[in-house]
């Protein structure tokens, strides 16, 4: 199904390139039709063929290995960011589920935090990190990118988990009360298992958000080695080598898919003994 959808996108791309105006077009005086020249929209097969050619003339390896190693670098950052974001998100959700007052006080700020543009935040995180010295610990540059990934990832995890933790039916909570179960027992025996169906979509959002965070952070902090940096570098060469930037863009997309796929696998394992039902 996914392969078919991909093929369909490729066909649509080529179709528009074929019928669309070479130099773009205007509708009612608005320039909204994209240009279809080979510079603006390279052919799908040119993009694919580009993977086999080296990054620069004279380089021994094809660009696919450069993109792959960039993706691998970014994947590790995204995983680190996702892990941090998940831990923070779970922690916040537990605290908010435990104390209604904290939920009321904290949740609006969490929402506001997501409206801060990442590009504005990135240099701040780098400079805070640079000033941070904990004994022998030196803040590595990559950690800033991971932190920014975490910054985007924690939010969906926190909100989804909070909804899940409060989703346990009143009768089940009453039952736990009748057993004189402690809050912790209720958390681990009832609230967490009941939250799993809510947790999975939240984690999927968090996983892809961490990729976005890391890619944007690489670009805005100038961190070399990752897929974000490749995108910005190749984009500068778009006029000379238009297919090149797409090799990196697809690399980033694959990264997001890979992260979401990992969550989907975890979902299958966690939910294998559950009735399949739709969570609204």
């Amino acid at each position, binding site marked *: 199904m996914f392969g078919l959808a991909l093929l369909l996108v490729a066909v649509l791309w080529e179709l528009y390139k074929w019928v669309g105006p070479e130099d773009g077009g205007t509708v009612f005086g608005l320039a909204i039709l994209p240009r279809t020249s080979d510079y603006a929209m390279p052919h799908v097969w040119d993009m694919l063929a580009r993977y086999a050619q080296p990054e620069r003339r004279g380089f021994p390896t094809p660009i696919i290995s450069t993109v792959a190693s960039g993706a691998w670098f970014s994947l590790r950052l995204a995983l680190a960011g996702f892990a941090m974001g998940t831990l923070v998100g779970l922690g916040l959700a537990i605290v908010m589920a435990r104390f209604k007052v904290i939920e009321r006080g904290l949740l609006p700020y969490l929402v506001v935090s997501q409206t801060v543009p990442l590009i504005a935040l990135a240099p701040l995180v780098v400079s805070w990190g640079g000033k941070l010295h904990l004994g022998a610990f030196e803040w590595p540059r990559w950690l800033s990118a991971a932190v920014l990934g975490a910054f985007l990832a924690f939010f969906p995890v926190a909100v989804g988990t909070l909804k899940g933790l409060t989703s346990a*039916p009143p*009768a*089940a909570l*009453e*039952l*736990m*009360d*009748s*057993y*004189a*179960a402690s809050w912790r*027992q209720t958390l681990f*025996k*009832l609230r967490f*298992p*009941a939250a*799993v169906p809510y947790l999975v979509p939240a984690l999927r959002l968090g996983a892809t958000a961490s990729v976005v965070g890391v890619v944007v952070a690489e670009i805005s902090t100038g961190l070399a080695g990752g897929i974000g940096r490749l995108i910005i570098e190749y984009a500068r060469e778009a006029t000379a080598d238009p297919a090149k930037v797409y090799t990196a863009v697809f690399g980033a997309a694959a990264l997001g898919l890979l992260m979401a796929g990992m969550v989907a696998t975890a979902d299958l394992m966690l939910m294998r*003994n*559950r*009735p399949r039902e739709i969570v609204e």
Partner: protein
Amino acid sequence: MSAAVEVRDVSKVFNAGRPNAVQALVDMDLTIEPGEFVSLIGPSGCGKSTALRLIANLLEPTSGQVLMNGKPARKARLDQDYGMAFQQAGLFDWRTVAKNVELPLELKGWDKAKRRTRALEMLDLVKLGDFADHFPWQLSGGMQQRVAIGRALAAHPPLLLMDEPFGALDEMTREHMQAELLRICGETSTTVVFVTHSIPEAVYLSTRVIVMSPRPGRITDVIDVDLGPRRGLETREAVAFFKKITEVREALRGIETSDIA
């Protein structure tokens, strides 16, 4: 020996002191001896579920006192001196049937082997021995409710509190479950407090039926039911059974009809 349950002069007001205050229960007095099967019956809003939750200490009374075997209700809850079953079986989807029955034992800190043995014992008691490793959603409603009863009795509490446990079942399953419940409680000599809407159910199960009325919730009648050992259809079709049903129905009629909205 002290009473299994003693409700002394208990009143409950929800949202006390606020404009939306509701007098849920007024001056309730009730003493239940060990081995009794007592039903609370009445129209919605008569406080029967509230009364059950006060006995279970899921609610604190506004005034008065609830004792269980001479112990304050709160202490009885902390000691898990009762088991409880609700209208929804309320089994945990992610646990197998046996693991669901083990839940109260787990919370009490029993070790694994002992828990498993007891859970299997309970499942045999409710005749679901073959379903230990099934998941709740693979079971019918009646079977789920039997698991819930097994769970409620897993720690061998002397008292079982039930809030319309068969309310969601169809009539045939319901009658079967009533017979099963009497058998189980007989075998385990458990005292039961049972909340229901159904007159035949109350009469068939109980040694005593407590009739309650709303606004404010209170006890209006106490009807002793002495039908001897219950024998399924034989009992259900006996004249004495119908007489008791009529008696309870008339007691319920006695409540001003305007009260029953």
